[in-house]
């Protein structure tokens, strides 16, 4: 996976691929490649979302423990 891929970039690429496939402008020869790429991007975005969610949840959990403990 690319080192510096961001969620935003990944998402935008994904949308472009989807549009390409929808319009049928993707040659059959590279379709599989494109789909493979989409799979990779989706995977990346999902992981990014999962990690962000986990992180946020963690922070909130910590804060709540703090609040509960500090009260």
């Amino acid at each position: 996976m690319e080192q510096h891929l961001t969620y935003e970039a990944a998402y935008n690429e994904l949308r472009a691929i989807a549009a390409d496939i929808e319009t049928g402008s993707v040659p059959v020869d590279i379709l599989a490649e494109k789909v493979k790429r989409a799979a990779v991007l989706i995977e990346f975005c999902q992981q990014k979302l999962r990690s962000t969610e986990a992180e946020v949840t963690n922070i909130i959990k910590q804060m709540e423990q703090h609040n509960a403990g500090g009260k």
Partner: protein
Amino acid sequence: MSNTPPIRLSDLTNRIQQAINNVFAGQTYWIIADITNYSYYQQKGYHYFDLVEKQEGTAGIIAKVAAVAWGAGADKIKDFERITGQVFQNGINVLVKVSVNYHNQYGLQITVLDIDANFTIGLLEQQKQAVLARLLTENPEFIQKAGDQYLTRNNRLVLNRVIQQLAVVSSGNSAGYQDFKHTLDNNRFGYRFIIHPYFTAVQGEEKAELLQQRLIDIFNTGTPYDAVVIIRGGGAQTDFLIFDTYRLGKTVARFPIPIITGIGHQKNETVVDLMAHSPTKTPTKAAEFIIAHNKAFEDEVINLQKTILIKSQQLFSARSQSLSALNSMIVNQARTMLSRHKDQLQGYNQTVINTTQSILLSKHRELLAVSGQVLSKPTILVAHKRNELENITANITSFNRMYFQNKHSELEHHKTVFRLMSPASILKRGFALVYQDGKVTANPDTIKPGSNIQVVLNSATLNATVTAKNETNGTAFDI
């Protein structure tokens, strides 16, 4: 000589008496007449006088008759003198009730039975009014009349607050003077007086000039008398006419020292009384008046003393009260002020405490709201992104399906076309291929009757020789 025989005098007088009695017996008459030839026999109490009627405005006598009063008549005269203050004497004009009788010895006699005091009083009053009228008209500069009151220079003088130095006009060392002096000297208040007597006759109209002279004497001494007192001392309770004279009225009215009278007149005031400063009835009354005047002054002085005492005490108590009021005001206000400050301080204390706590509370709430916002939103955001991602994944899947369908149908189309176009399918439908010299030809020109051609059909090849040739225009299959 008379031819009638003489009769006795007594017969005659009897007959006169008889005749007069016939007419006058039991009759009385009220007549107005002047008195002359008056004489009085004190032992018998008989009054002898003549009643005369004078011609109007002259001294000519129209009628005259001798009269006598005794017994009841004498008593009436005494009453008359007492009531009118007029001495029964020559020259007075009276209304008398008389009876007429004849006495053998004394002849015709008019007996006075009664005398009308009111008639004389009326006359005297007329005289007095005439004098007063003359005083008013002839001395307007120091005698005026206001209502019933006569305003004279004398009675407009202001009495000194204290009457102490006195000039007393009186007849000798009379009882009236003694009464006056005794009353003054023995006053119960211990007041002391300086009394200078000026004796003169105070009876008889003709003495008016003497009395006037005494008043002038008083004035001329230059002594600062507080008042001049005119008193009529004792004697007969009659003959006040001197005090109704024009001369004395005028003198008293213009006299520069206040005059107090004590003439002893029982009835009306005399002209002098009306002109004087302070008329009193008797010498004793005059003295009492003076004492009362001084007493009034002393009372006023003592009242002032009382006023000063009471007001001083009131002043003390008022001052004392206002001091206490100020005192309690200061005390209360100081306390009020302190307690108000305490309350305010308490108020600020509460404000600081409560407000600070509420500030902290609201800051807590604010923070809680903001942190709630910060913490709830990311989860939603992530969920939203996940949705997006899922949508796009689903899209890609479905788009692929469509994509392959399209591509498959494209290929199928071509496949169909080519199947239709292949020579095998053409030959099946009855068409044939014509070969000449091993080559397919569509040109009939090179084929002549007798040419050898091969005709290829669906499932066989025919070697043939052309036997005939008919030209067709070849338009039968144009579409």
